[in-house]
């Protein structure tokens, strides 16, 4: 049975077996060579699996049962905000008026869709303290690239071509330096201080007239609030740079404080994190970018505008960075986020932030006697432990993560942020009950005890999953990317 669980659909194939038998063709038969030029017709038969309908259904049902998601259990993946996705969002996105429209339909026939985009821009602008939001970027890193292109266009439009540098903290998400590099910037790293925030003196020494901006996550990837954010913004602005807010951790502050009020000029949000749209498995994501007034002309086109005859797509934007995605972004995802915002309202968002912070601090206090806590201060929506004590006893953070699978959990983020050795980054989110948190805490305590008593057992985990410990190094060094018969 075990072997069958793992089999590919190709391995179940039997020549001639079919799921569907098509009825006789009721239009005149034409050979394919009359319809498609010969050079496009394949010469060998496609190697497709030949299975019955029930084989296909069982195969994919089995695969879906091997999957793990927020609908199956607790998923404390730090920096990813794997909160529950309310099903009412799906109902709204499936309404015919949203789901059955075509992107080339005339504007006057999709006024409701345009209004929804326009209103979502207004609501996200209010939530972030920005003046305008583009809903085009398809996910977080795409939002980063879009935001950085806007920063670049802003400086160049002022006739300032010297600003080639983007500063990122050493605790930054890996996407920050990657997005800066792909947008053509040089990346400089600023160190963190002993409290886990940006080292202001180090930042000052890096600032000059070649710096285009600073990318920052607040709270940062240690789950800590940048206490000096106003000072940081002053330092960057005084040298002519702009501040970019990576919204990956916005769940901790939403409804309470706003990046725009902290001094940020450009913001991206992850609708698939903070705004409860599906995350993982391809999402798809959505990474809206908000800007302050001076940057509006550079937003990607089109921008939704409104005049006396209704809503329209404005392409007449000479300073725009251009299109960053086909059509209008991941529209269905925006509908889900809109539904979420409307269901929560302003006070609801405050609850989201407060409960997500409370839940993370609860875990921090319950586990800090078992796991090393490198920055022992009140955390925001996530807490970063170090598995160093356990590593010294013979089982590393990777082993702890693998062992959590046996207890039925998706492991937390591990080995990130890079400035914490053996990092274990836990983000419970606000949608989990105290009972769920207590069960997880118990599992973590049990694992720490197992490591004391028999580290070898933890090192061999997992034992209960459909595939056991994978050889990740071999998979990366010697990947098998295609199936061969």
């Amino acid at each position: 049975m075990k072997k069958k669980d793992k089999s590919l659909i190709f391995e179940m194939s039997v020549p001639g077996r079919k799921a569907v038998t098509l009825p006789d063709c009721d239009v005149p038969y034409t050979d394919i060579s009359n319809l498609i030029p010969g050079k496009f017709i394949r010469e060998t038969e496609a190697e497709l699996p030949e299975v019955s309908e029930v084989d296909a259904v069982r195969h994919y049902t089995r695969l879906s049962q091997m999957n793990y998601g927020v609908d199956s259990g607790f998923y404390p993946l730090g920096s990813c905000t794997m909160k529950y996705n309310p099903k009412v969002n799906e109902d709204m996105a499936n309404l015919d008026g949203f789901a059955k429209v075509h992107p080339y339909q005339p504007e006057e026939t999709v006024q409701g869709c345009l209004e929804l985009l326009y209103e979502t821009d207004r609501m996200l602008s209010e939530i972030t303290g920005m003046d305008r939001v583009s809903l085009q970027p398809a996910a977080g890193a795409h939002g980063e690239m879009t935001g950085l292109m806007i920063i670049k266009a802003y400086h160049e439009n002022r006739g300032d071509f010297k600003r080639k540098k983007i500063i990122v903290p050493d605790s930054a998400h890996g996407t920050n330096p990657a997005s800066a590099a792909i947008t053509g910037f040089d990346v400089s790293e600023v160190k963190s201080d002993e409290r886990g925030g940006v080292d202001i003196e180090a930042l000052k020494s890096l600032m000059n007239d070649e710096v285009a901006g600073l990318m920052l996550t607040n709270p940062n990837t240690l789950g800590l609030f940048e206490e000096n954010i106003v000072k940081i913004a002053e330092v960057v602005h005084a040298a002519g740079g702009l501040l970019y807010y990576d919204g990956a951790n916005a769940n901790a502050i939403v409804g309470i404080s706003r990046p725009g009020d902290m001094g940020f000029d450009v913001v991206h949000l992850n609708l698939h994190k903070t705004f409860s749209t599906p995350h993982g498995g391809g999402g798809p994501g959505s990474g809206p970018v908000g800007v302050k007034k001076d940057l509006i002309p550079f937003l990607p086109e089109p921008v939704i505008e409104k005049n006396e005859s209704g809503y329209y797509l404005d392409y007449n934007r000479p300073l725009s960075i251009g299109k960053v995605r086909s059509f209008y972004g991941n529209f269905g995802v925006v509908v889900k986020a809109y539904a979420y915002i409307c269901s929560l309202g302003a006070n609801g968002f405050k609850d989201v932030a407060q409960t997500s912070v409370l839940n993370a601090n609860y875990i921090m206090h319950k586990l800090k006697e078992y796991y090393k806590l490198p920055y022992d201060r009140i955390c925001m929506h996530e807490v970063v432990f170090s598995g160093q004590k356990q590593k010294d006893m013979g089982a590393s953070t990777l082993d702890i993560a693998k062992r959590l699978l046996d207890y039925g959990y998706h492991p937390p983020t591990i080995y990130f942020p890079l400035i914490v050795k053996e990092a274990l980054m836990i983000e419970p989110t606000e949608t989990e009950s105290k009972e769920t948190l207590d069960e997880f805490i118990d599992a973590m305590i049990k694992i720490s005890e197992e490591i004391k008593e028999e580290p070898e057992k933890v090192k061999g985990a997992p034992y209960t999953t459909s595939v056991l410990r994978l050889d990740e190094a071999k998979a990366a060094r010697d990947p098998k990317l295609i199936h061969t018969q």
Partner: protein
Amino acid sequence: MKTVEGLKYSKEHEWVKVDGNKAYIGITDHAQNSLGEIVFVELPETGAELNSGDVLGVVESVKAASDVYTPVSGVVAEVNEELEESPEKINEAPYESWIAVLELSDLSELDKLLDAGEYEKYCKEEA
């Protein structure tokens, strides 16, 4: 954590083996141990002129991709192409698996580096 007497060490966890005005540069046992199993090594271009602190290459493990900095300035004379095929050599024998050889432009930079004892002490303090 292993060190080898006679090599120079940087606080960024690189080792330097000096041979005349040439320097072999690799990453330390401590570095490979923290990174975990290395799956990819990006080498510099031969002939590249590097200042101390510049990126010499990248080592990527299952956990993270990390820049390797050259602790000394010079021109890249040779690169260890074997690591492209067998990056695991860095895990197996870190002090034999040099990444590149630099033709040194400033021998006095070597004085700023640590010896084996000083480096071990530094790693302990860092932990």
